[in-house]
């Protein structure tokens, strides 16, 4: 019994020390000054996907920061749609994800795609947060009420009410062609999304 306890102790110390020495790195832009709340390292994934590649994307309509109501169906037959769920406003990795998409519009344009950014934050919060990013060319939607309903339809709502850091590429027919439910602590590399978009045309 004592040997078992000793072994468990060593295992726990081992696991703890792994996390202690591999801190999650993220860049924080000075644009947000001291306003970023550090959430620490989170469980990489905390939900079960309800859709898969080849499925029809669940339909939805959500209010945008711009004041309009945006539905997925309005793009059917017209544009490919990239949905970027990010966990929460004013958090480290999320704050440095959409500003990158903001200077990569040509990658979306070249593949006849638009981008919808979604979080479960309310509109005033999203307004204040995205204002720090400069003028965004894409729509930012609020999945605040009923809380996380759209995220839930896709199966990316975490147990604490925020979403996963997830990307979905939906083609003009409304079919899901790419899913990346990323480790919440890390930013998905842009080239992976660019490759997925390029494959749409093939």
């Amino acid at each position, binding site marked *: 019994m*004592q040997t078992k306890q*000793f072994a468990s*102790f*060593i295992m726990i*110390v081992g696991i*703890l*020390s792994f996390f*202690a*020495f591999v*801190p999650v*790195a*993220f*860049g*924080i*832009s*000075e*644009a947000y000054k001291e306003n970023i709340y550090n959430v620490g390292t989170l469980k990489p994934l905390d939900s079960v996907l309800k859709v898969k590649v080849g499925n029809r994307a669940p339909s939805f309509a959500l209010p945008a920061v711009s004041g309009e109501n945006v539905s997925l169906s309005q793009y059917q037959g017209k544009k490919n749609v990239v949905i970027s769920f990010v966990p929460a406003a004013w958090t480290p990795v999320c704050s*440095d*994800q959409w*500003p*990158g998409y*903001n*200077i*990569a519009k040509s*990658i979306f344009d070249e593949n006849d795609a638009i981008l919808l950014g979604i979080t479960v934050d309310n509109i005033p919060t999203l307004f204040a947060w995205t204002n*720090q*990013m*400069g003028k965004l060319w894409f729509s930012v939607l609020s999945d605040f009420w009923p809380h996380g309903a759209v995220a839930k339809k896709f199966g990316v709502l975490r147990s604490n009410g925020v979403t996963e850091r997830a990307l979905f590429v939906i083609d003009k027919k409304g079919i899901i062609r790419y899913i990346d439910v990323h480790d919440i602590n890390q*930013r998905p*590399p*842009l*080239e992976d999304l*660019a490759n997925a978009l390029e494959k749409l045309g093939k």
Partner: protein
Amino acid sequence: MKRTAILLTITTTLVVALALSTLAANKPPQKGEVLPVMNLPMPKNPVEKGYLGLSGDGSFKIPQIKANVVIVEIFSMYCPYCQKDAPGINELYNLIENNSDLKNKIKLIGIGAGNSTYEVEVFKKTYTVPFPLFPDKDFTIHKACGEVRTPYFIVVKINDDKTHQIVHSQLGDYPGAEPFLELVLKSSGLKQ
């Protein structure tokens, strides 16, 4: 008893190592210090290689750059302030390159914290950045630099014997090309 001693040793070692690594990780490069270890990939582009006065393959360290002063910008393509400052940093490059006295004395590089080669290229293309940008995809350099927020500027003076020291560093607050060049010239001693 022996077991307790082993447990105690392991725990103490871990705590001490953790404390040391935390201390080391929290220190952004400051004036008067030397740079933390930064291995940058040798540029493939011969024009960039020529600009930095480098030769060979593999990796290089900043003091190997053929210059009296190197301005390093730690940036990210995902950082709004880096995006906003980009045209002004290009102007700084042009001010230096168009001045025959300074052209071969001051060089400028950017390091993309957490940015892949692809992401650095997107930034370079979007803002037509004329100086070399390097990826730091796994945040190795960013961590070595105390995980500074971006943009972070480091001005490094390189001596004739290839030793070096940081003569200025600042977080954000880019004042524009001319005032920044003035600051670089004064802090490095290129202008008395």
